[in-house]
């Protein structure tokens, strides 16, 4: 192995190690998934594995209706396959997977960027993608994070397709799988691919015969989205209705998350933008334009477009950050090349350039970790509550329905394997949550209310005063047999 290759291999492995660390940095001192969405996905995955089918009783609503054609089915299958194949407990895999996925994102980013001279830089800055409870991110085991792999993956295939038909079916397979995994990301990846293809077809000097695969791909990309319509028609129609009716989710506007990436990365990204424009060429424009459009969109859609639920678009920050990571990497690589060219006549010029770049990288990393420190995450369960839920799963009859604070429902179902009467972490579920909390505050004295809902377990934050209940553990009550 050549010395330069060895050094690159060392840096690449170190970056992947950094990705492992960054992915779980927000939860180093917390043993469980952080966000309710993670619990929900794990709960659905467990339910699919229990029933063996993609139509399954909704575990978060007492099995009262079937879930079918779920729009994130692909993600559940991938996670379920990982659980089955490894035999690992879901809690262990829930910690391991975010680290592995970010490691894969960094590696695929490297593989895409290296042909253009910024593989290591792209991989390094890809580990900087931020995680918040609003637009999610690599610290969470959620479909959108898995979807990020497909940006650099499809770009590798696309560039390979410049003279070759073979990548075409692989792009279609990837997009179809992504539509089944996370539709919003699939739309974003499709959008980036379309921009790349348009620039290639318009500006590349390759003969038209060589452009035919790309032209075909451009025509096929919209059709790959049909799969989600066929699989999850009800969901798609509902989302279209949401968009048409401008149903708003009453969430406060999120501040621009870019400062969390650190000002070094932002400065390098700006430099990268400048170099992309200055150097020109279809590849550079194709990277620049979708990033600018996405950045513009996620920042201004609320004021200017005002269509549909905000949360559909907030995920866009992740795509922006990933594309920015590529551009930042490009900027840093251009600075490196300029520095090496400028100082090459000095005796210590090359070493000085690399030392300066290393300082920039370390400083960028320091600021990035500082950005994570400023982010606040909540904990759905503490260790005693986790033990309560686990005990309920082990000791109480299978497939029981529990009444508890709907906010904790997703977590309860995932840990215990029992059903929850209802669970809802969203603000529009508050009315039902208020009713249930009021019921608990009144001591849960209305046995009919419990029986009508086919509930046999109650998990209450308040002491209950119903003689038909047995308190079997702190806060855990069961309805006596015969009721």
């Amino acid at each position, binding site marked *: *192995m050549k*010395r330069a290759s*060895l*050094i690159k291999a*060392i840096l690449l*492995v*170190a970056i*992947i*190690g*950094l990705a*492992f660390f960054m*992915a*779980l940095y927000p939860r*180093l*001192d917390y*043993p469980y998934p952080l966000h309710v969405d993670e619990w929900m996905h794990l709960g659905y995955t467990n339910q699919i*594995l229990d029933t063996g089918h*993609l139509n399954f009783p909704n575990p978060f609503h007492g099995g009262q209706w079937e879930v079918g054609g779920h729009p994130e089915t692909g993600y559940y*299958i*991938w996670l*379920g396959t*990982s659980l*089955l*194949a*490894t*035999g*690992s407990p879901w809690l262990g895999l829930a*910690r391991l997977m975010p*680290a592995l996925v970010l*490691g*894969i994102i960094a*590696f*695929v980013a*490297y*593989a895409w960027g*290296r042909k253009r001279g910024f593989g290591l830089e792209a991989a390094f800055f890809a580990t900087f993608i931020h995680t918040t409870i609003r637009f999610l991110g690599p610290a969470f085991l959620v479909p959108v994070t*898995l979807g990020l792999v*497909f940006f*650099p*993956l499809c770009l*590798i*295939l696309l560039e390979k397709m410049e003279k070759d038909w*073979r990548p075409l079916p*692989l792009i279609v*397979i*990837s997009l179809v*799988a*992504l539509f*089944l*995994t996370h539709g919003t990301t699939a739309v974003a990846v499709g959008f980036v691919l379309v921009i790349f293809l348009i620039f290639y077809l318009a500006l590349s000097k390759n003969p038209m015969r060589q452009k035919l695969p790309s032209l075909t791909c451009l025509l096929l990309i919209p059709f790959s989205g049909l799969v989600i319509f066929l*699989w999850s028609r009800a969901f798609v129609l509902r989302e279209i209705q949401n968009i048409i009716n401008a149903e708003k989710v009453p969430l406060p506007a999120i501040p621009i998350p870019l400062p969390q990436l650190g000002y070094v990365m932002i400065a390098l990204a700006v430099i990268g933008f400048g170099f992309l424009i200055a150097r020109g060429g279809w590849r550079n424009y194709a990277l620049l334009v979708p990033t600018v459009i996405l950045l513009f969109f996620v920042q201004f859609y609320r004021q200017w477009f005002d269509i549909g639920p905000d949360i559909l678009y907030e995920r866009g920050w992740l795509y922006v950050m990933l594309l920015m990571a590529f551009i930042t990497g490009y900027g840093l690589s251009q600075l490196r090349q300029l520095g090496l060219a400028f100082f090459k006549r000095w005796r210590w010029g090359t070493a000085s350039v690399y030392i300066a770049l290393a300082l920039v990288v370390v400083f960028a990393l320091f600021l990035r970790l500082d950005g994570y420190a400023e982010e606040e995450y909540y904990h759905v369960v503490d*260790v*005693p509550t986790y033990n309560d839920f686990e005990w309920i799963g082990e*000791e109480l*009859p299978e497939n029981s329905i529990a009444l508890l604070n709907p906010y904790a429902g997703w977590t309860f179902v995932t840990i215990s394997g029992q059903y929850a009467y209802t669970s809802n972490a969203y603000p529009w579920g508050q009315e039902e949550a208020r009713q249930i909390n009021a019921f608990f505050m009144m001591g849960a004295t209305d046995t009919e209310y419990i029986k009508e809902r086919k509930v046999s377990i109650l998990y209450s934050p308040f002491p209950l005063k119903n003689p038909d209940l047995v*308190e*079997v*553990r*702190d806060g855990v009550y069961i309805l*006596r047999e015969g009721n």
Partner: protein
Amino acid sequence: MDLLAVVVASLVLVPLAVFCGGSPASLVLGLVLALFSPGYSLVAAVFPKRDDLDIAQRLALSFGLSIAVVPLVGVVLNFTPWGISLYTVLISLLVFIIAASAVACYRRRRLPAEERFEPRFGFALSGFRGRQHLWDRVLLVLLVVVIIGAVGTLVYVARPPAVEETFTEFYLLGPEGKAADYPDVIILGEEAIVTLGVINHQQVATDYYIRIFIGGKTVVEVATSTLADEEEWEQRVSFAPVEVGEAQKVEFQLYRSFDSDAYHTLDFWVDVVGNQ
């Protein structure tokens, strides 16, 4: 050689996943199956030439396309009579990997030997052979150190952090040790039986005792032995009411040796009837 390794790794996983699920070997091979092998064999089938892709692209596509293939295989399984289970998932992925590897083998064999993609295992070790510069050897050692560091980081971040909360689990089961058959009517003069359990998570050895009250009067006091941290105690406990009356509250109060007030209290209600 590479395709054989992928197929063998997948074949080895099947008995491992079935009989030793959760072992370190099944964890590693299971992750390889879910994240690498299907994509690797597919890429090998589509791109049999050495010049088709460089090694980084080949590996990157292997990871990415595995993440794409696995969900599609699962969707297909859903429409079969066998559904999605450990066996169907393993077998279907195994069939996919073997089929794609067979296509890859066939396509590679049709190429001249010098054009075929064949990974060179052990190329990194070549640095230790022959007359290599000292720096190359140092870099090789550094590479090994960094690999160990990356794996170590993964193990470090993936391990659950130490629990800081201190607490005690206290639970109440029926006479047979199940959450059923709790007494609801007790005849005066007869004993009722329940099962009580305590699990110590106080991070220090702790002495506990339990007082049972009926209608506010102490009827039994039970002491556990000293429980070490994480130690469990479970015992059938009998108690007898002292007076007749409907809807009497039976309370089980747990105390640590130093508690003046109850640490945990569980309760249920019973009717106590006379012996007629």
